[in-house]
């Protein structure tokens, strides 16, 4: 039944207490269309019974003070960003009805990408886009929707097609996207138009209430002050200047095709969270340190070779096992400019003490998997340190006489086992067994943590043992 009294809708605050000075009237100029659109929104919020759950976003522009007026949840946001803020507000509160109220500069210029992307994602929000073809608040400058020839503070000679381009048609633009559900343009331009705008706005809100996705109504709206016309001449101005360019009507409506969707979240128990974060692994097994030879303790190890030789994962094998062994460990990949030239390396530290610098200029151990690495890093090895190199593919011999040198035909051994890519694991096996830095069992236990392809774990265990056996022959 139609209402017998048409009065200030309940969607508005009784008194605009947030507004300085006069709490009874809006801050808008006489004849400004914002007031009409506010009324349509406030009335719809009341009639649709969504007042408690509505959150309205105040943009930047003349409508920056939307929050003065609406007796709903309110948030004021940065210029153009309302669709991004709305995205998160709605996802955090799927039950809320989130309304982004934006002007043409805010939505179509500075926030152009934000509206485009939110629409394309099909965010379940409602956007009220007030197009008055001008920036009001900042003093009547050019908007993306300003008309050709239109004089503004920043187009004193009129908008020029060859300088500013043509006015932007936003609903048509968004209608080319698959994401949005409901898009319509209407106008506050006289009785019959206002009735259509009222209906469009309600459709847009209902779209969100029904869980049908993104809705937007572009509303052509008068700015008599900016246009420098009397309010009573403003509708004629719109009809003459705006309507030829901005056609009214529905540009997209797929509400009937969209299945209702309401985002829900589960609350997980602490145990479920731990499990889902892959943190519910059993307590680590600690293997007793069995450092057999002195001089190998607390090593900093550099592993170097070509990308693809498993340099980083060999380092990870050592570091993971070191952790299981109860040692302090760190692993850092070559990173940044060092990666140029095809040489990948990583640093691993295994220490009884807290690790300070995770990289050192002079490593205790160098494992070289290709010739450039050997030639580049051999001079850096700390005197008394250990150099291991893959003697299958490195055809030069190390030159240093003050370090221990182990030639390991790792690639040949890996090839004999059926997979040349396991030379890295063989080298790790040789290192561990030769130095006694940790139990080979610790490495074997933790191999699955360092090897991403689970079907290769068993083969790598074989390679590890081959390395351990090789060390026994040294």
């Amino acid at each position, binding site marked *: 039944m139609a209402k017998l009294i048409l009065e200030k809708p309940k969607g508005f605050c009784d008194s605009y207490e947030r507004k300085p000075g006069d709490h009874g009237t809006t801050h808008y100029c006489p004849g400004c269309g914002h007031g009409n659109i506010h009324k349509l929104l406030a009335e719809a919020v009341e009639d649709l019974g969504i007042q408690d759950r509505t959150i309205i976003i105040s943009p930047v522009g003349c409508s920056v003070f939307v929050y003065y007026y609406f007796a709903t949840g309110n948030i004021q946001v940065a210029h153009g960003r309302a669709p991004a803020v709305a995205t998160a507000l709605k996802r955090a509160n799927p039950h809320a009805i989130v309304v982004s109220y934006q002007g043409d500069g805010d939505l179509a210029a500075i926030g152009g990408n934000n509206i485009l992307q939110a629409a394309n994602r099909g965010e379940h929000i409602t956007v009220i886009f007030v197009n008055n073809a001008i920036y009001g608040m900042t003093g009547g400058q050019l908007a993306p929707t300003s008309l050709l020839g239109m004089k503004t503070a920043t187009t004193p000679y009129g908008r020029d097609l060859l300088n500013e381009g043509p006015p932007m048609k936003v609903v048509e633009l968004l209608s080319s996207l698959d994401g949005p559900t409901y898009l319509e343009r209407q106008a506050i331009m006289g009785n019959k138009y206002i009735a259509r705008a009222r209906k469009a706005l309600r459709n847009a809100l209902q779209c969100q209430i029904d869980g049908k996705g993104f809705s937007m109504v572009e509303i052509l709206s008068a700015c008599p002050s900016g246009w420098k016309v009397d309010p009573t001449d403003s509708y004629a101005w719109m009809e003459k200047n705006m309507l030829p360019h901005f056609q009214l009507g529905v540009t997209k409506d797929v509400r009937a095709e969209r299945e209702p969707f309401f985002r829900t979240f589960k609350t997980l128990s602490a145990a479920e969270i731990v499990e889902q974060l892959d*943190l519910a692994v059993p307590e680590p097994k600690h293997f007793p340190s069995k450092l057999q030879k002195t001089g190998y303790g607390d090593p900093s190890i550099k592993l170097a070779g070509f990308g693809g030789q498993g340099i980083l994962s060999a380092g990870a094998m050592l570091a993971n096992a070191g952790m299981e062994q109860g040692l302090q460990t760190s692993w850092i990949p070559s*990173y940044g400019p060092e990666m140029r030239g095809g040489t990948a390396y990583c640093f691993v530290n295994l220490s009884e003490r807290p690790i300070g610098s995770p990289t050192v200029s002079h490593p205790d151990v160098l494992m070289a998997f290709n010739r450039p690495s050997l030639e580049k890093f051999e001079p850096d090895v700390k005197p008394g340190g250990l150099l291991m190199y893959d003697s299958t593919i490195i055809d030069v011999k190390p030159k240093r006489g003050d370090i221990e040198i182990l030639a390991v035909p790792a690639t040949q051994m890996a090839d004999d086992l059926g997979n040349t890519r396991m030379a890295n694991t063989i080298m790790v096996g040789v290192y561990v067994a030769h130095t006694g830095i940790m139990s080979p069992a610790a490495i074997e236990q933790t191999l699955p943590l360092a090897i991403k392809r689970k079907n290769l774990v068993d083969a790598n265990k074989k390679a590890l043992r081959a390395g351990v056996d090789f060390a026994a022959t040294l």
Partner: protein
Amino acid sequence: MAKEFIKGNEAIVKAALLAGCRSYYGYPITPASEIAHAAAKYFPRVSRTFLQAESEIASIQMVYGASASGERTMTASSGPGISLKQEGLSYLAGSELPCVVVNIMRGGPGLGNISPAQGDYNQIVKGGGHGDYKVIVLAPNGAQEMCDLTMLAFDLADKWRNPVILLADGFIGQMMEPVEFPAPVGDLPAKPWALTGEKISRNNLINSIYLDNDELEAHVGHLAEKYARITEAEVRFEAYHADDAELVLVGYGIVSRIIRTVVDQAREAGLKVGLLRPITLFPFPTRKIGELCESAAGFLAVEMSTGQMVDDVRLAVNGRLPVHFFSRTGGNVPTVEEIFDVVRQHLSAAQPV
């Protein structure tokens, strides 16, 4: 709970989820992308929101919206992306919205490079956005702290209704170390100011505009008073052999790890050298540096920038002692040897002739 050998960048994500973070809004950039990768993997697993935004500008504004709704929320990036987030950070601080932002610093200015650097100190600690505001800044120096300080960051953000920034570098982000993860946190603090789309929150307003001069002055004064209380309450640092040191080295993040080794080697050589590592960069351990002025003969700030944190050291020292400076930039990390050489120079220069 498990001890995991894990990259610092990934530890951040697990820590955030354990801290009750409900949403991650991000955008890829090296060397912070692993954070987004891990977030994309783990947030949906525990029924929380991960969304790759259209830009850094959008992602921080999504954080603004998520925070306004009362949930714990975060984003992460590196230098160029953090520059784009400054608009949002100013709004978050102005509206007193809690959130956690991670900056895995890379070389700059401009596109710079993807190697570790510390050139964003001023941008983060002094405020890269507009207006009078501060963010709390935490500087982890290893994977365990990437976890621990991420969890602390969410608590501090809620406690002070303020953005908290985790300021690390590419090195700390890429490095793997063992991390002991704590149990998931239980109840989180109530946020009666939030917008929840319910009757009870209908009168709430999230806002940073105060058109009336006196109202804005009162708001800015309120924020300044809050920052003063944060300065009193939240200073964190690590002092290592600092209290009897002649020369106190000051560094944060990866640099502090290298300095620690320098200190160990110097002490073995009989040199009285110590480390002061700020864990909070805002608030800065100004008082501790003042105390060390009583016992030390000088300070040496080491940074991977041309000299940003050193200004805060100088302010704290306030002319009482010499403050030396050593830096590497461009993505280069200072070596133990380089720093040790500088230490020797300054210690020998300090000896009476």
